[in-house]
């Protein structure tokens, strides 16, 4: 299981994370391959978000190894790497508790995502030469296009904090996409959306995966979305991976039913 496949973009080996006495993750092995949509599910408090935090550098895992293969084909060890460098490498995330830049407009929020892909510095900003101007316009245009992608172009100039919950979630996705990731990490993107909106979101994710050629790692409690969207699923409980496999395999796994899905899965 721990043998790394050649097309893995993310592979995690034997990772653990302790908070004081609490072991939030223990000996997790994990892999995302190129172009895949992988879901991570599990009961509340299982350690899913903590897993995201560990691989994006927000926490440094207590043990284990995180390897990422960026678009350049090189594989790097990234545990403990600073968050911004992880993002620059090409792993972008959204947050479970939405973290938008509240008093910036929707468009600007996305433009922030372009930051690590642009180079304009202090002097460029002050003198605003043709190169800078071109880059700026490109940032604006690309960001706007991303807003179109997630259906928010008509609120481009609204403050992010004034958008409804669902729109904020989509805006976070657009912002993450703006960093040109090879791996998109979504933490409960459908939370706060109704079934219809969830459906639209799913379509959106599928489209994004093709168009931007990204792998997606998804935490979600909406089983309908998870089951129909993902190629593979990892199930976590008390910080351990208790099952992996295709949606069909996982949803039939008695362990998973006991720990997470419950008897009659009517999702």
């Amino acid at each position, binding site marked *: 299981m721990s043998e790394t496949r050649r097309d893995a973009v993310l592979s995690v080996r034997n990772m653990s994370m302790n908070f004081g006495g609490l072991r939030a993750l223990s000996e997790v092995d994990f892999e995302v391959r190129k172009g895949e949509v992988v879901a991570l599910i599990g009961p*509340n*408090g299982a350690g899913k978000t903590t897993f995201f935090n560990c691989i994006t550098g927000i926490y440094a895992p207590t043990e284990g190894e995180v390897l990422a293969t960026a678009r350049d084909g090189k594989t790097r060890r990234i545990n403990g790497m600073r968050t911004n460098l992880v993002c620059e490498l090409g792993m972008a995330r959204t947050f479970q508790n939405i973290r938008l830049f509240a008093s910036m407009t929707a468009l600007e929020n996305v433009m922030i995502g372009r930051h690590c892909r642009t180079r304009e510095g202090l002097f460029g900003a002050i003198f605003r030469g043709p190169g800078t101007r071109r880059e700026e316009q490109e940032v604006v245009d690309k960001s706007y296009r991303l807003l179109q992608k997630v259906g928010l172009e008509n609120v481009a100039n609204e403050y992010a904090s004034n958008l409804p919950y669902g729109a904020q979630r989509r805006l976070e996705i657009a912002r993450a996409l703006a960093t040109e990731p090879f791996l998109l990490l979504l933490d409960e993107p459908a939370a706060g959306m109704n079934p219809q909106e969830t459906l639209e979101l799913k379509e959106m994710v599928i489209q994004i995966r093709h168009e931007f050629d990204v792998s997606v790692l998804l935490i979600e409690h909406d089983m309908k979305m998870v089951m129909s969207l993902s190629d593979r699923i990892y199930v976590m409980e008390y910080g351990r991976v208790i099952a992996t496999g295709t949606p069909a395999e996982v949803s039939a796994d008695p362990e998973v039913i006991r720990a997470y899905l419950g008897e009659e899965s009517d999702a």
Partner: protein
Amino acid sequence: MLELKNIDTYYGNIQALRDVNITVREGEIITLIGANGAGKTTTLMTICGVVPARNGEVLFQGKPITRLSADKIVRMGICQVPEGRLIFPDLTVRENLDMGAFLRDDKSGVDSDLEQVFTLFPILKERRRQLGGTLSGGEQQMLAISRALMARPKVLLLDEPSLGLAPLIIRQIFDIIKQINRESNTTIFLVEQNANQALKVANRGYVMENGRITLEDACDKLLANDAVKKAYLGL
């Protein structure tokens, strides 16, 4: 029990609610569904006096509460589980629950309620010494619900209680809603994205679009309504 009459609510100069009329009878479960940004959260905030209505009136047990401050409204027995897992991040789980019972004086009742909440959500008992802010999303949501239960309100306003919870727990939440409605005759005002489930537990439902109530009916009727099916049930 609770009545909203011609409510208009604004954020600055943006109108979020337009002429909203809702009636909740005692002992009833009603649900309010609607798309993102329809104004559901705003409706609850207006009832609680956090975002006061500019026009119209809110009546509770026949008395107007429109201009009362939020704490007075809570004192009258209206309690809200707010959207987005609002909890006290630097208080422990236990202290958060105690804050829920802030207005209560019956110590023994509070203690037994605490036990009850811990049996409902055993994970909270495990985590009772942890700071609220470090809980996982779902744990925070459970804490928020439990906190409201600790207040023993007459009317419980729930804003998307199932948000971020595992399927198993969601089912449990809806059971709890039914249970407290049945056992302590708590009136419940449920705002849900999970319209399917919500319409199943509730007696009556309202549909909100762009700050207006567009439909109002018994839940089974709404479940059968084509427009509702298409827009909210994802069928």
